C-alpha cells in the first residue's frame, strides 16, 4: 500500500512540470476538416494548406493577444459523413475554438450538427449546397457561394452566351453535385432549353465511356458536367474528347483547380465553368500568391476561401478578445473587409454572398469570360 502511494506521488511529481507548461504556454486551437485521403484528397489538401497559410500570416503579424501560439489541427473527413462526424467529435475533444471545413456538403451538413451541440463555430470554404446555411444553425458560416445562385447563373450562361438549345446533364450523386445538377436542370427548363437527359455516374468511377457514348448519341449542344472534384471531371473531359464527343463541355466550381488542365491536357481547352469571381488584381490576392505558390504550388479552388475563412475567424477572435462563441459570432457579423477571394461580409444566414461568373479554360489558366449582368468580360 505504502509503495503504491509513493509511486503515485512520484508520478504526480513527474507530471507537475507538464501541468505547469500547459498553463504557461497558452495556445489557441483551430481545427480544419477536409478530405485528406480518398478520391478528393487533393481538394482537401488545398483547404488544409489555405487555412495553415492564414494562421502563419496571422502569427507573423503579431499573433493572438493573450496566446503564445496558434495550433492547427487538420482532420481527415475522406468525404465520408461518418468520418466527418468522428472528426468533429475529435476536434470538440481537442477544445478547438473554431473549425474551417468541411469540403463535401454531405460531410459538412452532419458534422455541423455535431459541432453545433457544443457551440463551435464552423466556416466552410467549399460546401455550396444551400442546406448548409439554410438549417438555421447559429454558428455555421460559409465563405463560398450557394448552389441556388450558381445553378441559375450557369443556366443563364448556357442560354445567353452559348445559345444552347439542348443540354445533357451528368452528376455523380453527391449532395453537392446532384443538388447543383438538379438546379441547373430546373433553371434551364425555365429558360426554355431542352434537357435531353440527366444521367448519373458513381463516385470513384474512372471509366465513363458508356455515359459518354450515350452523350455522343444524344449530341446535345451542351454537356453539363457536375462532378465532385477536379479529378473525375478531368478524366471525363479527356475521355469525351477521345471518343469524339462534340458537345460543348460546361462544368462547375469544383473543377476550379489548375491540375484539371494537367490531367485533361488539350481536351480541357475551351471548357467553361462557373466559379465565384475573384479579383486577381487586389493587393490581398497578390500577397497571397507570393506566399502560397512557392510553398504549396498553384492556387486551387478552395485554398483562397480556406485562407479567408481562417483569417476571418482569427480577426473575429482577436476583436472579441475572447473565445466565447457568442462574442466571436458578433464580431464575425461585424467583419467587412477585402479578403483574398472576395469581399467578406456575412449576412444573417451566415452566407457571404455569391458572385458566380463563367470562366473559360485558356492555356493553363481559368480566364474570366462572362458575368450574369453585363455579359462578356473584356
Amino acid at each position: 500500500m505504502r509503495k503504491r502511494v509513493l509511486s503515485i506521488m512520484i508520478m504526480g511529481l513527474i507530471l507537475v512540470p507538464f501541468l505547469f507548461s500547459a498553463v504557461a504556454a497558452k495556445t489557441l486551437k483551430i481545427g480544419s476538416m477536409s478530405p485528406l485521403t480518398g478520391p478528393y484528397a487533393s481538394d482537401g489538401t488545398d483547404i488544409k494548406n489555405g487555412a495553415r497559410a492564414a494562421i502563419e500570416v496571422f502569427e507573423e503579424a503579431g499573433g493572438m493577444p493573450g496566446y503564445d501560439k496558434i495550433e492547427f489541427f487538420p482532420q481527415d473527413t475522406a468525404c465520408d459523413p461518418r468520418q466527418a462526424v468522428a472528426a468533429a467529435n475529435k476536434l470538440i475533444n481537442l477544445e478547438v475554438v473554431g473549425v474551417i471545413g468541411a469540403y463535401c456538403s454531405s460531410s459538412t451538413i452532419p458534422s455541423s450538427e455535431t459541432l453545433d451541440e457544443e457551440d463551435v463555430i464552423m466556416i466552410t470554404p467549399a460546401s455550396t449546397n444551400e442546406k448548409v446555411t439554410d438549417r438555421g444553425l447559429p454558428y455555421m458560416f460559409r465563405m463560398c457561394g450557394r448552389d441556388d445562385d450558381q445553378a441559375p447563373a450557369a443556366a443563364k450562361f448556357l442560354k445567353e452566351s452559348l445559345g444552347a438549345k439542348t443540354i445533357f446533364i451528368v452528376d455523380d450523386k453527391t449532395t453537392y453535385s446532384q443538388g447543383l445538377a438538379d438546379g441547373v436542370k430546373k433553371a434551364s427548363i425555365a429558360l426554355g432549353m431542352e434537357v435531353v437527359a440527366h444521367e448519373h455516374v458513381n463516385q470513384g468511377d474512372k471509366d465513363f465511356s458508356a455515359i459518354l457514348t450515350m452523350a455522343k448519341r444524344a449530341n446535345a449542344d451542351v454537356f453539363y458536367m457536375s462532378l465532385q472534384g477536379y479529378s473525375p471531371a478531368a478524366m471525363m473531359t479527356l475521355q469525351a474528347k477521345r471518343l469524339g464527343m462534340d458537345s460543348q463541355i460546361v462544368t462547375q466550381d469544383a473543377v476550379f483547380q489548375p491540375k484539371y488542365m494537367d490531367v485533361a491536357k488539350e481536351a480541357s481547352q475551351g471548357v467553361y465553368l462557373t466559379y465565384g469571381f475573384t479579383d486577381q488584381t487586389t493587393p490581398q490576392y497578390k500577397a497571397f500568391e507570393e506566399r502560397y505558390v512557392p510553398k504549396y504550388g498553384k492556387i486551387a479552388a478552395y485554398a483562397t476561401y480556406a485562407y479567408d475563412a481562417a483569417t476571418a475567424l482569427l480577426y473575429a477572435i482577436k476583436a472579441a478578445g475572447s473565445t466565447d462563441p457568442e462574442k466571436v459570432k458578433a464580431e464575425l457579423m461585424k467583419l467587412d473587409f477585402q479578403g483574398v477571394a472576395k469581399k467578406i461580409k456575412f449576412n444573417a444566414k451566415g452566407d457571404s454572398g455569391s458572385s458566380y461568373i463563367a470562366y473559360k479554360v485558356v492555356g493553363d489558366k481559368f480566364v474570366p469570360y462572362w458575368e450574369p449582368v453585363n455579359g462578356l468580360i473584356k
Partner: protein
Amino acid sequence: MRLLPWHKPHLLVRPNNLKLRKLNTMEYFIQQLINGLTLGGMYALIALGYTMVYGVIQLINFAHGEFFAAGGYVGAIALAYFAGIGYMDSHPVICLTASFMIAMAYCAYLAVGVEKIAYKPLRKNSRLAALLSALGMSIFLSNGMMLTQGVYDKVYPGELFQGRFDFGMVTISYLQIMIVSLTACLLVGLNLLVFKTKIGMAMRATAQDKTMSALVAIGSNKIISLTFAIGAGLAAAAGIMYGLYYGSVKYDMGFVPGIKAFAAAVLGGIGNITGAMIGGLIIGMVEIFGAGYISGEYKDVFAFIILIGVLYFKPNGIMGENIDDTRV
C-alpha cells in the same frame, strides 16, 4: 436600346456534319461493345493475378489491386524520364516497351517481397490470418503510394498512341486495340506457360499438393514466388495501359478495379485462368451495357447481380474451380 454582347449568341461553333448525323442503333451498340471489351480486358488482366495466386496457395490476395496501381505509377515515372531525355519522340515504341518491362519487373519484385513479408510467415496459420494480412498490405501499399507520390493525379506524358480509327460514327482508338490484343496475347502465353512447360507443370503440381511436389524436388517456395511475380507483372501491364488509356494515375486507383477483378475471378471460377479472362470480359461488358442501355448509376449493381446470379446456379463459377487439369 444598346445591344449587349450576349444578345447575339454565336459561340457554339459545331461541325456541320455532326449536326446532321447521330449514331444509329447499330453503331451505338458497336461503340458500347468496344468500350466493354476494353474495360473487360483490363479487368481480365488484373483478375489473372487473383486467380493464379488463389490457385496455388488458396489466398485471396487483396493487395493485388495495389500492384496494378504501382505498375501505373512506375510506368508514368519511366515514361516521364524517357520524355525528359528526349527519347520519346525518336523511339516511342522502344520507350513504351522499356516502360512496360520496368513496371512489370518492379511489380514482380514488389509482389515477391510482399509475399515473403506478409504471407509466407502465415502460411501455416489459418487462412483468415493471411486474408487479414492481405487487407492490411493493401491499405499499407495504397497509403505508401499516397505519401510518396502525393495526393494529386500523376499525368502520363504526351499524347502517346492517341490516334484513332473512325468507322462512320464508331471510334476505335489505337489503345483500345492494343489493350484487347495484348490481353489476348497474354492469355495465350499464360496458357502455354502453364500447360506446355516444365515450370507450368511444377506450378500445377504445387497447386495440387505442396508436400507431394516437394518430394519430387519442386521447390514450392520458388514456385509460389514465381506465381506472385507473374500475377503482379500482368497487373502492372494493366496499370500502364490504364494510365495511357485514361491519361493519368492516382494512388487510390487500384481499389475499385481490384474489387471488380476479384469479382471477375470468382465469376469465372477462382483458380481457373481461362475463367478469369471470361469473367473479366463479362464484368466489363455488363457494366458498360448496363450503363449504356439502362442507367449509369446502376452499373455496379448490374455487375454484381450477374455475379450473384451465376454463383447461385453455379457456385464454382462459369468454368468451375476444381477441375485439376485447368487449375494453376
